[in-house]
């Protein structure tokens, strides 16, 4: 029996495992988890089987349902946590507080492990793979452990430190009692809630369509976008910051956060979807770090398990988009910094003044790169601009130039209003 009343095949092509078919062979070879592929095959079969029935639901119908699921707090064990709780649309779908990690669980008292990324401008069709030169690229989550948006959506529903439903049945039970349950049945079949796995997959499918297609998640409404279209001019300080951002001799930021249009003409997303190891200081505000043996290594675990043997990748996390970065309450995977300026200072002063960022060891020396065990410190990127400096050298950016870059990054905030020269991501949200 199909899980859908209608044929969402076209949508499946854009967000489902079909996308994995386009990844290089080298990427497939890196995936050791047979279960992941089994999941893809099952999902594809389930959705493909739906092609024989009824009319196709529109993308907008699926996205509308996904938007409701996204905002539904009743889908959590606590009844007070939805996707939007952490990915607040008014804050460019990122966290709205300055906590390093968000609390979840049945009583909202179980701390998480990583800071919340923005869901705006996600890549929607780039599963994790190793590029021809070995560069890890793509995927979802900060460690690229999910290959599709559907796959990614499982963890927040189930994880004990998030919505804490435990299993799919817990999620589907709540979906069946949601205000939009009839809409759900209308799209996926009257008995869909009796088929636990199908219903859980359908919910994540609707979420994926929402995340991949909703205009508020890709509004391209920043001052910088208008500048690229020739509709506004950037101010002098913003232009200077843009130059320092791009310059390989200054910030070198554009090396990982490209600022020019893609070859297909798309506006820049300010990420190249690769991974980098910045050596961000250990954040004691994450409760898990109380255990001295706890390390979050990103690509090589412990959350992600298939690359555990790749010790050279330990400490690498996904390069995020810098769109809306000025609205972030915390910066980096562990939420170490609470201001954008401080994060930029870290970039350019990490190697010229390490004592400012890292604690002293028992021997009185600075324990640089203190969030990885000493043998893995060599993985930290020290060869590229702006890290390629030594203590005592001038930082790649002066204090004034850091101010310039901060001003430029402010032009990447969505919801720009030329009349007031202000930006607010909440302006992109559909009016009720």
């Amino acid at each position: 029996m199909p899980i859908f009343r209608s044929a969402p095949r076209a949508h499946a092509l854009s967000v489902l495992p079909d996308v994995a078919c386009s990844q290089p062979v080298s990427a497939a070879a890196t995936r050791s988890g047979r279960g992941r592929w089994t999941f893809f095959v099952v999902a594809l079969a389930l959705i493909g089987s739906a092609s024989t029935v009824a009319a196709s639901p529109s993308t907008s119908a699926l996205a509308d349902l996904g938007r409701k699921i996204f905002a539904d707090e009743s889908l959590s064990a606590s009844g007070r946590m939805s996707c939007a709780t952490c990915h607040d649309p008014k804050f460019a779908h990122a966290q709205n507080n300055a906590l390093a990690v968000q609390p979840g669980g049945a009583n909202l008292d179980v701390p998480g492990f990583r800071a919340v990324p923005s869901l705006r401008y996600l890549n929607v069709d780039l599963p994790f793979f190793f590029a021809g030169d070995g560069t890890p690229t793509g995927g979802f989550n900060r460690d690229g452990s999910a290959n599709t948006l559907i796959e990614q959506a499982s963890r927040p529903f189930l994880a004990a430190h998030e919505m804490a439903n435990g299993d799919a049945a817990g999620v589907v039970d709540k979906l069946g009692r949601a205000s939009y349950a009839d809409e759900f049945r209308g799209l996926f079949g009257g008995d869909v809630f009796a088929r636990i796995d199908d219903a859980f997959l359908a919910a994540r499918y609707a979420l994926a369509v929402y995340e991949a297609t909703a205009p508020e998640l890709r509004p391209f409404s920043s001052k910088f976008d208008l500048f690229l279209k020739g509709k506004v001019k950037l101010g002098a300080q913003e232009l200077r910051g843009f130059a320092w951002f791009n310059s390989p001799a200054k910030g070198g930021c554009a090396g990982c956060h490209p600022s020019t249009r893609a070859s297909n003409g798309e506006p820049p997303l300010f990420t190249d979807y690769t991974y980098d190891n910045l050596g961000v200081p250990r954040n004691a505000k994450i409760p898990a770090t109380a255990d001295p043996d706890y390390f979050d290594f990103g690509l090589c675990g412990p959350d992600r398990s298939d690359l555990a043997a790749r010790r050279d990748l330990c400490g690498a996390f996904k390069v995020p988009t810098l769109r809306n970065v000025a609205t972030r309450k915390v910066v980096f995977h562990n939420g170490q910094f609470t201001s954008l300026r401080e994060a930029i200072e870290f970039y350019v002063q990490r190697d010229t003044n390490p004592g400012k960022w890292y604690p002293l060891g028992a021997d009185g020396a600075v324990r640089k790169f203190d969030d990885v065990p000493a043998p893995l410190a060599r993985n930290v990127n020290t060869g590229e601009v702006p890290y390629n400096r030594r203590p005592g050298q001038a930082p790649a950016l002066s204090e004034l130039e850091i101010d310039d870059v901060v001003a430029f990054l402010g032009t990447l905030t969505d919801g720009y209003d030329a009349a007031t020269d202000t930006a607010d991501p909440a302006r992109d949200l559909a009016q009720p």
Partner: protein
Amino acid sequence: MQRKPLALAILLSCAGLAPAAHADDAKLKAEVEALRAEVAELRGIVQQMQAQRAQTPASTAPAAATAVASSAPSAAVSAGAPAASIAAPQAPTTTAGQPLPGTGSSGLALGANTSLWGYGQIGYNRPTNSAGDTRADLSRAVIGFNHVFDEATRVYGEIEWEHAIASSSDQGETEVEQLYVEHTLAPNYGVRVGLVLVPLGLLNEHHEPGYFYGVERNFVETAIIPSTWREGGVAMYGNTESGFNWNVGIGTGPNLGAWDPAADEGRASPLGSIHQELQLAKARDLSMYAAANWQGLPGLQLGGGVFTGKIGQGDAALPVNRSRLVLGEAHLRWQPGPFDISALYTRGTISNTQDLNLQFLGQPTPVPKSFWGGYVQGAWRALEWGSNSSLAPFLRYEMFNTGAAYAAQPQGLGTPALPTQRVWTLGANYYLNPSVVFKIDYQKFRYEDLVLGYGNRFDLGLGYQF
């Protein structure tokens, strides 16, 4: 060899005179008889030459050897058509008047109407200051074809493999460098439609290894005139009795929207980084070109050309739709006796780059407002062995700048002009025979930039063509 096309030219001239107005039938008849006698005489000469040719197959002189050895105007070098059941159209030539490979007597006949031709090039480059960057490379292997459909129509193509292996995980490329249908409208002019070579400079139309001095093509005609530069479109070509060869065309042009300010390609060759090579080319804005060569005196070639067109290609999202490219060049080649002297100057401009470069602030490679280059070269066929082998040392001095000027930007954020590169090249071409050339040279650069391949180096090369 060189008399055969001369004979054909006389024939064609005579044929052209035949329809002239004659009131007197008797006089006309007499003239026809006289012409018939001349034709019979010429036929005998041609047969005699063909018989001689059959006895000495290796005597075919390639363009390069001819260029070194001959003091005759190259227009007169055009050989006859390959053996064909259909009378072939006039042997096609470049705008400089040299015969194209695979036409005339060169190439390998495949049946009555088709011939194959080809060339290849292997090089060894050893930078003197960074031996670790030494490379040996099968830089080009080319197969071309020439197929005659009828007396006026042919198709001509060139397919190339660069760097030995072309696959998704290798650095080589496979490409169609030329592919066009040519139709002769009259003995002295015709039309080409398809992917054609832009007739600028001395090298772009005739880039076989035996044709140029030095292991690598000169920098001016790779960095400024991006040989092998080809565009899709329609071209008219022709020549006059006074020694002019001309070529005008309209077709695709570069795409400024493809400019990558973070990459090095735009500094290596501004136009080479945005030419489209008829690969799903954006073609909203058409470009035009015109080029001519005068070869009215033996051994002398004077020429030049202009290519211009808007290069925004209708990209509404980019402030480049008003940008226009103009590239002009002038050249001289003089071949007195054993000497071969050439000089070339070229300059290009791209207009309205200010707003586009504002979007590239701080990036290493903004779009230049102007770029230029020039060279002088002298070669001397110093030694000859028999009728086939020769040694030609040469000396070349080049100056070029791929970023001579940039549009103004906010104070302190502009890009300074690039330094002008100057390159001395001293070397020799040794022609084992007219089809096989060994090369050696040393290149000395004013400044080093290994990313762009600028650095004193020693080069060895092998080339062939048939």
